[in-house]
C-alpha cells in the first residue's frame, strides 16, 4: 500500500489545486458545446483530480473505498450513455437519433443539443471512474491481496 507524502508543501498545494481542477472539469464539460473539450477531457480532468486527492490522503482514511463500488459507478455511466442512445430507438427512431425524443425540447436542434449533453455526462462518468479503478487496483488492491495471502 502506498503512503501519503508527509511534505506540507505537497499537502497544501494539492488541497488548493483539487477544487480548481474539478471546477475546470465542470467548465470543460458544460462548455464543450462552445469551446474545445467535452466528455473525454472533462472525465480525464475529474479522474486526475480524484487520483491527486487519493495520493495525498492517509491510507487508513481511504479503507472505506471499495473498487467494486467504483466499477458499479463506471457501469452506471456506460449505462447512461447506452440509455441516451437507445431512448430514440424505443421511440421508433434509430440509434442515437436524438430528434425522436420529444421531452428534450421543442425543436430538432434543441433535442440534439440536450442529447449531446446527456451522452457526454455518461462519458465523463465512465472515463473518470476507469482512471480511478486503475489507480486503485495498482495502489491498494494488489497490496491488500498480497497481505491477505501472506
Amino acid at each position, binding site marked *: 500500500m502506498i503512503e501519503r507524502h508527509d511534505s506540507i508543501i505537497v499537502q497544501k498545494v494539492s488541497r488548493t489545486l483539487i477544487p480548481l481542477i474539478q471546477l475546470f472539469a465542470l467548465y470543460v464539460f458544460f462548455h464543450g458545446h462552445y469551446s*474545445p473539450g467535452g466528455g473525454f477531457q472533462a472525465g480525464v480532468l475529474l479522474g486526475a483530480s480524484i*487520483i491527486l486527492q487519493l495520493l495525498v490522503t492517509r491510507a487508513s482514511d481511504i479503507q472505506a473505498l471499495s473498487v467494486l463500488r467504483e466499477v458499479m459507478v463506471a457501469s452506471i455511466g456506460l449505462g447512461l450513455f447506452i440509455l441516451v442512445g437507445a431512448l430514440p430507438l424505443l421511440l421508433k427512431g434509430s440509434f442515437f437519433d436524438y430528434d425522436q425524443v420529444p421531452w428534450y425540447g421543442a425543436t430538432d436542434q434543441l433535442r440534439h443539443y440536450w442529447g*449531446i449533453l446527456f451522452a457526454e455526462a455518461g462519458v465523463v462518468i465512465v472515463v473518470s471512474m476507469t482512471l480511478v479503478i486503475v489507480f486503485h487496483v495498482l495502489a491498494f488492491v494488489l497490496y491488500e491481496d498480497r497481505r491477505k495471502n501472506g
Partner: protein
Amino acid sequence: MIEAINIILIVFILVTAIAALQVRELVSAVFILGCYSFFLAILWVVLNAPDVSFTEAMVGVGASTIFFLLALFSSKHFVKLQVWNISHLFIFMLIAGLGALFVWGSLDLPWFGDALSPPNAYLSPHYLLNAYADTKTPNAVTAVVVDYRAFDTLIESTVIFTAGIACLLIMKVRTDK
C-alpha cells in the same frame, strides 16, 4: 516563427523518446516519458487541437506517469546489461525494414493538410457547414463526436471501461495464486 517552434518541439520529442529508451534507470525512463508527453501536448496546441492536448497533458503526463510508477514499485525490476551480438543486428534490420515498409505505404496517403484529399473535400465541409444548423452546437468537434459519430464514441467508452475491468481482473488473478 511557428515553424521554428515546430522544429524545436519535434527535436525535443525525438530526444526525449530516444532518451527514455536509452536510460538505464526505469524510474528515470518514466519521468522522461512524462516530458515526452508534455512536449507532445504543446505540439497538439500548435497544431490547433487543444482538446487532444488536454487529454495528452492529463493522461500522458499525469495519470500514466503515476500508473507506471505504481507498477514499478509493486514489481521486482532489475537492470540487465545487454551485450551487443549478431542477433541484435538481425532484429534491428527487421524493425528497420518494417519501418521502411510503413513509410512506403504511407506515401499513398494524402499529404498533411491537403485541402483536396477526400475527407477534406467532402466530409469535413459537410460537418462544418451543417453542425450548427443541425445541433445548435458551435463546436463542430463535439457535434461530430457525440452526435454524428456517437456510435464510435460509445464503443470507445466501452473499450475504456473494459480496460479498467481487465486491470482489476488481472491483478486479482495474479495475486490469488
